[in-house]
Structures are given as structure tokens and as C-alpha cells.
């Protein structure tokens, strides 16, 4: 299926402030990997299929792809089989950054902890993170970027 891009959606990607800087020789390799690495191409195709547009790999304020790439991160299959980047490039206000912090603290994948297995400490940790002020600010900024109230 051919994906049709909305020019209005692409404009901020092309004109927004660029996130992440690499030395020129690494930047060259980064561009090659982003274009031709099979895992990254699978991820890009999956992203376009689900979202209906290209991923913002240059100016996304919540995820630094260059930082992730430089840390050796690459898309890996998630629980549902779709390719997914790790946490290395996530900014402080990324919505799922708390999952990596949860794993570091409790040694368990929060997506695999079922009801009845949450300890009081886990519950407290999650409740402090869920819909907290930085995250609500993040969504407020997104809405403002879209011109919504």
C-alpha cells in the first residue's frame, strides 16, 4: 500500500530544531544505517503502516535516534513482534522512559508484571510516574504544536 504523506505533518519534521549531533564520520555511518540496515527498515515500514507517516528521526524532542544509534541500540522485536527501539535515546519526558527505570529498580519488565504481583513499592513508583506533570506538559506542548487548545 502506498503511504500518502500529509505535507503539514512533515513540515515541522523538516524545519524543527535538530536533536542530537554526531561527528561527521559517525553521521555518515548513521545515515547509511538508517537508510539500509534491515532492522531499521523493518521498523520504519512498520511505523509508517501504523502511523501513516514517516518517523521523525531528526527533530523528535522525546527521542534522540543518534544517541540511541551511538549507544549500539537498534530496533528489536517487542512482545507483540513489532520492532521497537530500546530506551537509550529516550528523553526525560518520553512517555515510556519510566519502564526502563522500573526495570533498573525492580529487575522486572513492567509489562510482564500482572495484577496481584505488584508490590506496594511498585505501585507507588508507577503512580508517581503515571500522568505526572512532566508528561502532561509534554502532551500540552504536542497539542500546542498542532494548534489545539
Amino acid at each position: 500500500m502506498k503511504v500518502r504523506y500529509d505535507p503539514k505533518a512533515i513540515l515541522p519534521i523538516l524545519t524543527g530544531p535538530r536533536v542530537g549531533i554526531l561527528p561527521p564520520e559517525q553521521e555518515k555511518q548513521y545515515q547509511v544505517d538508517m537508510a539500509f540496515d534491515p532492522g531499521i527498515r523493518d521498523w520504519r515500514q512498520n511505523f509508517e503502516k501504523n502511523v501513516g507517516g514517516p518517523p521523525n528521526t531528526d527533530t523528535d524532542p522525546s527521542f534522540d535516534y543518534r544517541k540511541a544509534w551511538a549507544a549500539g541500540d537498534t530496533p528489536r522485536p517487542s512482545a507483540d513482534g513489532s520492532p521497537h527501539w530500546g530506551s537509550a535515546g529516550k528523553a526525560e519526558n518520553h512517555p515510556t522512559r519510566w519502564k526502563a527505570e522500573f526495570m533498573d529498580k525492580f529487575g522486572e519488565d513492567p509489562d510482564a508484571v500482572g495484577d496481584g504481583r505488584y508490590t506496594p513499592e511498585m505501585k507507588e513508583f508507577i503512580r508517581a510516574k503515571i500522568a505526572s506533570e512532566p508528561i502532561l506538559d509534554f502532551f500540552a506542548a504536542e497539542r500546542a504544536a498542532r494548534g489545539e487548545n
Partner: protein
Amino acid sequence: MKIKFRPLRVSDFYNIELQPRHAHAEPMFHANPLVLHALTDSPFSFTMEVDGKPVAALGPTDTREIWAYLGHDLKRHMVRLVRYTRAMLEMYGHCWARVDRNNPDGERFMLLLGLRKVKVDEEGTMDTWVNDR
């Protein structure tokens, strides 16, 4: 008017004045307190309070299914509820929900939460919705 989001409590299921479309579910919920306790166990479940009165409760189950227990006359508070829930779902990750096929309000709520319709259940009475996380 003060709006507050807090962790879900079992008593909220008895204090929320349900909207008429959900009224058929009330006896089933009230007759199964163990189910209510299980729903409150998820740290992602929350209650929305307006001036100290619970008006809506929402959360995921163990199977990542999203449920909602919504009071009547939520119109004025829907924007806050949707924004908070969207933020919660972004952080929660993959989830799904089922909505009656004859419930246009429920379908609109799903669209507002960023879910998309994927299939009809075996009985042909409910649609399944998912987010793409």
C-alpha cells in the same frame, strides 16, 4: 470546581452515578466485589473526582483490556478526562478495549483515546479496539 485524579478505590464503584448507557452493568459489578478488588489492584487504574465526588473510573485489566466506569453528565469534564487518559495510555503501552456495536458514544470515546477499531467479536455484538503501541 476542583478536578483531581487519584488511585481507584472499590468504594468508587458504589459512589459513581453511572450514565444510563452503563446502567445495565451496575448490578453485575456490585455483585462481584472480588472483581472490583482485582480492578483496583492495577496501579494504572484511576478515579476522576470533581469537587470531591467521584465521577469516572478507568483502568486496564490483567490482560491489558481497558475498562471505563463513567458517570452521567460528564460532558463538561470529558476534555480533562480524555487528556489524562491519553497520557496514561501513552505511558502504559499496548492496550485494547471492547465496545458495544450500538454505542456511538463509546466509539467516539475510543477515537478520542486514540484507539482504532480492528474486528467484531464472535457474537457480532461488540467491536474490538486497539492502540498501536
